């Protein structure tokens, strides 16, 4: 009875209680669903932009594509730096099936070292299975052929071609062209500072030296890219957009392969440099430093043994002697000093000086010797230059004084970088009072001026500076900027490299230019001229000046005896020249280390250079 009554009474209350709990539950459900909805609203509406960008960032990858590097040719279009395909053997693990099996097959076909195998297997473990992994790089032609005919039975195996820089003339143009090499951290930092690093995302190499470095920006070209959709493992699903790379500009140089070869052949085993230039526009025709080396060694990373051999060679092949070789100019600067003498009225064309074979300063008994032991007798400005009389210039130098000499010679480019289109250039040294004070903390003595007047002691110059100063003489004071690049071109356009000439040396009397030029022609053309023997019976006219630089001081009254001197202590032979005598189209300088006299060693080299220049018609196309 009781049992039955209690539930009867409680049913309504229980239902009420349960229903109120149900309402509470439904309310909680609704509140929590609202929380979800509010959160969804935040994610999908308020933060939509942010997540949209992140989603695209996940999905879209930009694959950079390296541009082809511009080619470099000589003035006639002969390629000096080209891009050659190199082949590498690559495998895509997900397509090859059993890796060890395929390695065995390949090992039967071509030689694969244990090291290559180990490197490859390591890469296989590290990379995604759909990535192509190189097993052997730089296959030779035979290997390419063997693999190619067997490709059909080895799925997932490919021979990939990639362009690689090649310098077909090997060591002939090294100091002009330089070379490219793998991008290192220094390069990256420099690119970053210049804001150009983004353009190198796909590039492996960069110009390290010479023209390759100077014109890096033009040669490199503009990177292209593919915008691709990738999945979470980085596999490319499809290409969304593709922007092709733009090849770098091709550069045609003013250098001439034939003239360059002549320069190399005439120097043979001798250390030295030859620079030839068109004085009218500064276009460099020959630029050769000996000994040279093969720049191809550097392209794929030079081995340390090869590098050490170059670095430690006593002949210092890495030095660019044309622009970094610092030589006493010796007598080659006598025409320049003669001009200063005439311009300042320190001497007149007719002024005659007695050369007894030595020169002494007042109140001193130190004898500054002439290269000719017994002197030249009476000399004027013409014979003084042509016969390279030292005494005439000792006197002239003392009268001019260091200040006027230093100022004036700077105008010919001495002590200054020429601005040629490579970075490897020294300014050499045109000394002054201030320089000596700063360098040695000593005053300038008249005794310093005497050897300076024949281009010795503190005065140094690079072969390029000597050629440029010759150009200033034949241009009657106009100085060109030397440059090796003549034309930069793409498939659609081209631009000529034509730096303007600038007035560098002003003269009071224009006639003085003719006198100086005449002294240089007499050096070649007169019987007593120091270059007469070398330039006997040329079919063209030319002017020049020899120089013989002492490398070590000769003791007072001692006789220079080449045979008794250590090879490294023998004289340097120098020569500057131009041709034709009227309206010159070429100026040049020759510097040969430790071989003796300028007239006997350097001038004959200049002769061969000019012989080739005129016979081959290097400038004929103009």
């Amino acid at each position, binding site marked *: 009875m009781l049992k039955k009554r209690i539930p009867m009474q409680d049913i309504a209350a229980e*239902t009420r209680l*349960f229903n109120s709990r*149900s309402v509470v539950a*439904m309310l909680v459900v609704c509140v929590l669903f609202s*929380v979800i909805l509010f959160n969804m609203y935040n994610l999908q509406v308020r933060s939509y932009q942010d997540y949209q960008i992140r*989603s695209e960032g996940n999905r879209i990858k930009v694959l950079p594509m390296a541009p082809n590097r511009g080619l470099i040719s000589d003035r006639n279009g002969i390629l000096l730096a080209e891009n050659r395909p190199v082949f590498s053997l690559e495998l895509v693990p997900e397509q090859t099936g059993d890796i060890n099996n395929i390695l065995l097959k390949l090992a039967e076909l071509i030689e694969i070292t244990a090291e290559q195998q180990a490197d490859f297997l390591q890469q296989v473990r590290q990379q995604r299975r759909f990535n192509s992994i190189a097993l052997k790089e730089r296959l030779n032609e035979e290997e390419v052929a063997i693999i190619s005919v067997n490709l059909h039975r080895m799925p997932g195996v490919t021979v990939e071609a990639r362009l690689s820089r090649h310098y077909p003339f090997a060591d002939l143009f090294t100091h002009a062209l330089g070379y490219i090499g793998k991008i290192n951290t220094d390069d990256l930092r420099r690119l970053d500072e210049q804001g150009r690093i983004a353009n190198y995302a796909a590039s492996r190499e960069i110009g390290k030296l010479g023209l390759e470095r100077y014109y890096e920006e033009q040669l490199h070209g503009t990177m292209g890219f593919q915008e691709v959709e990738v999945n*979470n493992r980085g596999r490319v699903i499809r290409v969304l957009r593709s922007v092709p790379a733009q090849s770098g500009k091709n550069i045609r140089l003013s250098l001439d392969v034939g003239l360059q070869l002549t320069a190399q052949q005439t120097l043979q085993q001798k250390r030295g440099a030859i620079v030839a230039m068109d004085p009218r526009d500064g276009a460099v025709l020959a630029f050769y430093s000996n000994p040279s080396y093969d720049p191809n060694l550097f392209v794929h990373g030079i081995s340390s043994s090869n590098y050490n051999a170059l670095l430690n060679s006593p002949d210092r092949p890495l030095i660019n002697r044309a622009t970094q070789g610092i030589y006493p100019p010796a007598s080659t600067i006598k025409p320049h000093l003669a001009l200063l003498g005439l311009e300042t009225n320190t001497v007149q064309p007719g002024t005659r000086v007695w050369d007894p074979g030595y020169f002494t300063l007042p109140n001193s008994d130190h004898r500054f010797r002439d290269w000719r032991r017994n002197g030249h007798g009476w000399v004027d400005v013409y014979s003084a230059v042509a016969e390279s009389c030292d005494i005439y210039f000792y006197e002239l130098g003392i009268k001019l004084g260091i200040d006027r000499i230093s100022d004036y010679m700077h105008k010919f480019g001495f002590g200054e970088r020429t601005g040629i289109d490579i970075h490897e250039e020294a300014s050499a040294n045109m000394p002054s009072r201030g320089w000596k004070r700063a360098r040695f903390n000593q005053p300038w003595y008249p005794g310093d001026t005497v050897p300076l007047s024949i281009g010795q002691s503190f005065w140094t110059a690079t072969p390029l500076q000597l050629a440029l100063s010759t150009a200033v003489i034949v241009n009657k004071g106009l100085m060109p900027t030397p440059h090796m690049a003549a034309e930069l071109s793409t498939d659609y356009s081209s631009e000529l490299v034509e730096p303007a000439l600038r007035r560098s040396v002003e003269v009071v009397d224009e006639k003085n230019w003719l006198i100086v030029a005449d002294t240089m022609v007499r050096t070649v053309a007169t019987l007593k001229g120091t270059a007469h023997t070398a330039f006997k019976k040329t079919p063209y006219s030319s002017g020049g000046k020899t120089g013989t630089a002492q490398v070590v001081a000769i003791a007072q009254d001692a006789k220079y005896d080449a045979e008794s001197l250590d090879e490294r202590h023998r004289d340097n032979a120098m020569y500057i020249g131009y041709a034709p005598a009227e309206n010159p189209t070429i100026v040049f300088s020759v510097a040969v280390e430790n071989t003796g006299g300028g007239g006997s060693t350097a001038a004959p080299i200049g002769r061969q250079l000019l012989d080739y220049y005129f016979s081959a018609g290097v400038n004929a196309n103009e």
Partner: protein
Amino acid sequence: MNSTMANPAQRSGKLAAFHIDLPLLLGLLTLLSFGLVILYSATGQSETMMKAQIFRLGLALAVMVGIAQLNPQTIRRWALALFSLGLLMLVAVLLFGYVGKGAQRWLDLGFMKFQPSEIMKLAVPLAVAWFIAADNLPPKIWRLIIGFLMCAAPTLLIAKQPDLGTALLIAMSGVFVLFMAGMSWRLISVIALLVSAFAPVMWFFLMRDYQQQRVLTFLNPETDPLGSGYHIIQSKIAIGSGGIDGKGWLQGTQSQLEFLPERHTDFIFSVLSEEFGLIGVMLLLAIYLFIIGRGLLIASRAQDNFSRLVAASFTLTFFVYVFVNIGMVSGLLPVVGVPLPLVSYGGTSMVTLMAAFGVLMSVSTHKRMLANAL
């Protein structure tokens, strides 16, 4: 009352004979269809997986209809037996269970592997409701205590496997029975306090490293974007980038390109959000809300305490699944492996859920007979 009930009863007259609750069935079928549409995209259009899922669906529907034929009183009589069997199996799992994914959750019956915790999802609410409904509501304190113990025993056994997520959900399904039975608010407050005091104990003594890591990652996923934070970051990107109207079916880049982890199981909600946007999310939530509302309505219309408690507990547990899954993939809750009910790919949980809905249908369609019997 009879007259108000007559209309729907007549309309679903034929279905009533099969003990089917039409609104609930329609809600479930809408959800399952929508789920299949999302799943097709989330599996990367895998026909094999679609076939498997549809097969499971058929099985689950059959289980639901089968259970719906049982009278709630029959279910009530079997509740304790099912609970005891479940407990035995949980003990068996700990003793000779099969270890998978670092946890011992499976019992190898020879012909199939079986998770006893799935039985407990049904058995705990059934048994607790059976025990509580044996007396008047609200339950007396000693019944509540025993009720809690009935929840605690399987919870601890499952937590030891370890499967903390399932353990807590099962505990919750039992606690829902106690709550709906009218446990006093004062007691609820005391228990809430006790639970919050228990939290540090749980952190230091019960949670494994990987569980702690999940919680830490949840608190700040961006600190570990490539490690365990990856899931939640990619999921939020998928959801957020869906915007209002979504990227379109099969067009979700996060899901189709597989940046989204577990896209067809735990993170299927993110696929929906990415491809159908906020509109799709609202549609899904509306369907869930309808099913939950219908479930609570069935519970409130049930005519005995056991039926209403069981119906309400199953409905609220279903809601908790939905909330925990969506909360976890959208960064509101830590990542615990809870699938989105009736949408995620996978068999066992779907069968269990549909069995629970079978019980709901049984409750919904047997009451007239019960009323007649009374």
